[in-house]
């Protein structure tokens, strides 16, 4: 409720009804403000920006091929630095999970390693949604996709951890279901210097198989079951976000079945896979507890 009034996206975009990415983008732009240049690869977000001639945002956007997001942001930053304008203008890359953890990982890694002063936001709807729900490296185990119709075998690539390993000043996870937390993270990132990475889980009604009105609730369940921990790593220091603190107590975590059973993409998940999820969440939170203790 405390967020600024000003909107940076006009109504009437091509985003699906109930698209959580549209909400993510709306909140993020409120934090970033008008002095922002956005770069977007091939993704659902490309479509939200509109077709030729007419766009939907009050900030400039550069559209680029799929693999190039980190490089494109590096180019914008370099040009602004050349012109002495880099202190005045935020450069923010917004890519999907496919464009980040798969095809875009090289250019992101390069941009991070070079210490590029930009924010990279990955909105993660856990598959190649724009092209029709094909699996990505970020698809969770057991989830249906058109290229894994029996459910994905394998794991979900832990991209925030990979970005932490680059030693960048800021890594965070977020979700639109906790918009104030999301807003704070973009605000904090905006005021830091260097590469900043924010990974935002983005429930997708057609891709995940639920009614559009449930986008916020599904995201909330992801956090409350402990599946999606909200945290920041600032200069290597781990900080668990307020809205995830409940999950430190395993008895306060909602059962993972509550999250899984309301999404049609998990319809063929076996009991064994659910046990795997439980073990995964248990290990995840043991790890978080020891990190907090170490700090």
């Amino acid at each position, binding site marked *: 409720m405390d967020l600024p009034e000003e909107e940076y996206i*006009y*109504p009437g*975009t091509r985003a699906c*009804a*109930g698209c959580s990415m*549209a909400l993510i983008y709306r909140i993020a732009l409120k934090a970033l403000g008008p002095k922002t240049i956005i770069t977007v690869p091939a993704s659902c977000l490309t479509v939200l920006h509109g077709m030729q*001639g007419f766009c939907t945002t009050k900030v400039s956007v550069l559209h680029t091929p799929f693999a190039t997001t980190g490089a494109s942001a590096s180019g914008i930053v370099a040009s602004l630095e050349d012109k002495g304008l880099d202190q005045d203008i935020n450069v923010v890359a917004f890519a999907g999970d496919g464009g980040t953890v798969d095809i875009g990982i090289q250019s992101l890694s390069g941009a991070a390693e070079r210490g590029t002063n930009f924010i990279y936001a990955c909105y993660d709807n856990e598959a190649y949604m724009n092209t029709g729900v094909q699996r990505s490296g970020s698809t969770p185990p057991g989830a249906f996709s058109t290229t894994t119709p029996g459910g994905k075998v394998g794991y979900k690539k832990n991209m925030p951890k990979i970005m932490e390993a680059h030693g960048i000043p800021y890594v965070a996870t977020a979700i639109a279901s906790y918009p104030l937390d999301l807003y704070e993270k973009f605000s904090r990132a905006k005021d830091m210097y260097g590469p900043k990475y924010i990974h935002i889980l983005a429930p997708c009604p057609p891709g995940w198989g639920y009614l*559009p009105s*449930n986008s*916020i609730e599904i995201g909330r369940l992801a956090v409350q079951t402990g599946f999606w921990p909200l945290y920041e790593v600032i200069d290597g220091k781990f900080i668990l976000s307020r809205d995830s603190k409940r999950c430190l107590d395993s008895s306060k975590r909602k059962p993972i079945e509550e999250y899984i059973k309301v999404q049609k993409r998990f319809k063929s998940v076996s009991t064994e896979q659910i046990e795997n999820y439980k073990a995964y969440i248990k290990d995840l939170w043991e790890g978080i507890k020891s990190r907090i203790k170490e700090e």
Partner: protein
Amino acid sequence: MTNVKKDYQKILGSVQKPVKGEAGKTGSWSSKKPVIDLDKCIPVKSGKFSCFNCWLYCPDAVITRTIPPTIDLEYCKGCGICTEECPVKAISMEEVKIDE
């Protein structure tokens, strides 16, 4: 050397300028629209700047943060998130007659 631009010299790369309703009147996407029961709506009842979950969670920013909140039905896609997120269930989806 003439200074008049040839037809192709006026066209360079594909560019966009901002407009409202780029995808058209997206209100036409759904015949069900949210209706706010002002007797239940918290900011209306209290007269204070409060709640506004509907404004906060709307992915398309078609709800105003005013007392009372208003919904732009020309662009509301009928997703129903506002009905789910209203803490007092003041909003419900109702069939709305589409203007011809």
